[in-house]
């Protein structure tokens, strides 16, 4: 399998004309600055625009860093914070400090798409969602959709990414500007006193969005909503919350590693920084009627109907009895639970049995992206079955 030319990819992602419209807003900022990564064609185009608009540049002196919305590219080599961050994260040497500095500039600080991290963060976001979802679906093929959404949120949700930013020791700049140390995360902060939670304008492509009483099914969220099953929100507030800016920074680092160091390095970075975080998936479940669900499951899979039996008990007539109830289907025990009443123990046993069904994990799990490596073994299809119990 031939290696793809990453340099060509990077130039297409980073050039302003590559992704037009849609998610990537094209901002043209008419200022004379040198770029870290740019194609000659785009540069020529840019210079042409600058020539046209040079009459507008009268108030700002080009040389001063105070005239710039974000630190100049040369400042990245002189920042101790940036070098320390690079070393602390053990980033590949092929990832230059200039790109790391660019990852730290949010689009609210510098609207120029060539100097902010927006393009990198879109790439990193797609990579993170792809790697996480394929890991979850291949490792636990029977997980219900709600649990997959919750696990996705726990692995690569904005709250997790913001916590990672703090763990990496990235500090936030009070106000973005050209004179700021490039090792600080720069974004335009929300004005104090703004209500962040007030009536978000929800932008979805969902038909009949105005009918608020209509049920929004879980499967429709796969199509219309984001990877966490939440509607994409567009808020009319000025500035960016620190959580969002931190999340975009982490995604941009992921995208930058992918572009500069290649796919294996990005995969390794993902495994070391994201998959290594402990998430107990068995705690993400919430059953309202476990016994009924288990009966439906056994009927669907042609097992014998589940029967609850008392395995052991103590203190039935006392104030604190304990019952241990097992749920059996024929001769096989499906689950076991302990509780202070027979009903509680049976309910917990049914929950344990359902979790046993959902948390099945095949041996020797391989994800589809493992096939991208050279000399990979032939692909064997992952386990797929009916999975979720639908009542």
């Amino acid at each position, binding site marked *: 399998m031939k290696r793809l030319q990453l340099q060509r990819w990077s130039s297409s992602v980073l050039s302003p004309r590559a992704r037009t419209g849609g998610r990537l807003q094209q901002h043209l900022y008419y200022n004379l600055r040198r770029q870290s990564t740019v194609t000659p064609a785009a540069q020529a185009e840019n210079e042409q625009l600058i020539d046209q608009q040079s009459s507008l540049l009268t108030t700002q002196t080009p040389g001063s860093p105070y005239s710039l919305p974000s630190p100049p590219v040369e400042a990245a080599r002189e920042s101790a914070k940036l070098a320390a961050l690079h070393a602390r994260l053990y980033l590949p040497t092929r990832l230059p400090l200039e790109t790391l500095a660019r990852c730290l500039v949010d689009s609210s600080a510098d609207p120029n798409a060539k100097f902010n991290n927006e393009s990198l963060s879109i790439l990193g976001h797609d990579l993170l969602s792809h790697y996480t979802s394929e890991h979850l679906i291949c490792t636990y093929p029977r997980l219900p959709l709600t649990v997959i959404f919750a696990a996705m949120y726990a692995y690569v949700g904005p709250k997790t990414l913001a916590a990672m930013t703090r763990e990496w020791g990235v500090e936030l700049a009070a106000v973005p500007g050209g004179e700021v140390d490039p090792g600080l995360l720069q974004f335009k902060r929300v004005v104090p006193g703004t209500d962040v939670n007030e009536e978000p304008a929800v932008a979805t492509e969902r038909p009949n969005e105005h009918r608020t009483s209509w049920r929004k099914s879980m499967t429709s969220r796969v199509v219309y909503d984001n990877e966490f099953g939440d509607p994409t929100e567009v808020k009319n507030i000025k500035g960016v919350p620190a959580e969002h800016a931190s999340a975009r920074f982490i995604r941009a680092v992921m995208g930058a590693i992918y572009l500069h160091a290649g796919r294996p390095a990005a995969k390794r970075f993902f495994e070391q920084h994201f998959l290594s975080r402990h998430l107990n998936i068995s705690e993400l479940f919430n059953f309202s009627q476990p016994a009924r669900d288990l009966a439906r499951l056994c009927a669907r899979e042609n097992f014998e109907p589940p029967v609850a039996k*008392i395995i052991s008990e103590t203190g039935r007539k006392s104030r604190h009895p304990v019952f241990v109830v097992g749920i059996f289907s024929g001769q096989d025990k499906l689950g076991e639970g302990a509780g202070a009443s027979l009903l509680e123990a049976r309910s917990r046993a049914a929950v344990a049995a359902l979790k046993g069904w959902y948390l099945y994990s095949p041996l020797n799990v391989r994800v589809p992206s493992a096939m991208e490596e050279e000399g990979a073994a032939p692909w064997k299809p992952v386990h797929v079955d009916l999975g979720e119990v639908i009542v």
Partner: protein
Amino acid sequence: MATYFTSIKRPLPSLPFLSPSSCEPIAWGARRHQSSYRRTKQRLRVKPDASFGTSSTNTYDHIIHNPPSSAPSVFQTPTKFLPVDDVRRTLRGSSTHVSTAEFSPVFETSGEKRYHLNASDVEEIRRLRLSDPMTWSRWKLAKRFDCSPMFIAMVCEASPQKKEIQKQVLEAVQSRWGAKRRMAREDRQLRKESWGRDP
């Protein structure tokens, strides 16, 4: 002082737990403490579990696996839930089969469905419930037709008047509850919801 006298005046045989042992007829009034060290030592001398130590048949080094009693992990899929092509199914073999005969069931009634009511019975249930909803409640209908109240609810629905009356009755009952009882009921409900959520 008073307590001292009463304890002296009590007859000895009424306090058997104070005497050290029936077979040691010593003047216990002279002794102030039980000599419990030897006795404790003796009682703690419990025979170890069979899986501990070296057995006579096995002289090699071996692994002692004696886990504490705990709930089984949910990450270990029951053999019945494993797919047909999974290796673990054959590895476990029939060792997971347990004889369930000696366990007593949680519910006395068996969960088997009988399907003993026909269309005319259902019509009768609906007619009774519409004609006199106060007499023919779900429980009474269930008892008469030998089915569950759930089935009655599936078959027919109470009239709006009956629902309104029932709501008022419930409110009247709940209005007499104090803070303690109300809180206890709410806590019970919350605990019940946590059954399906907690690990």
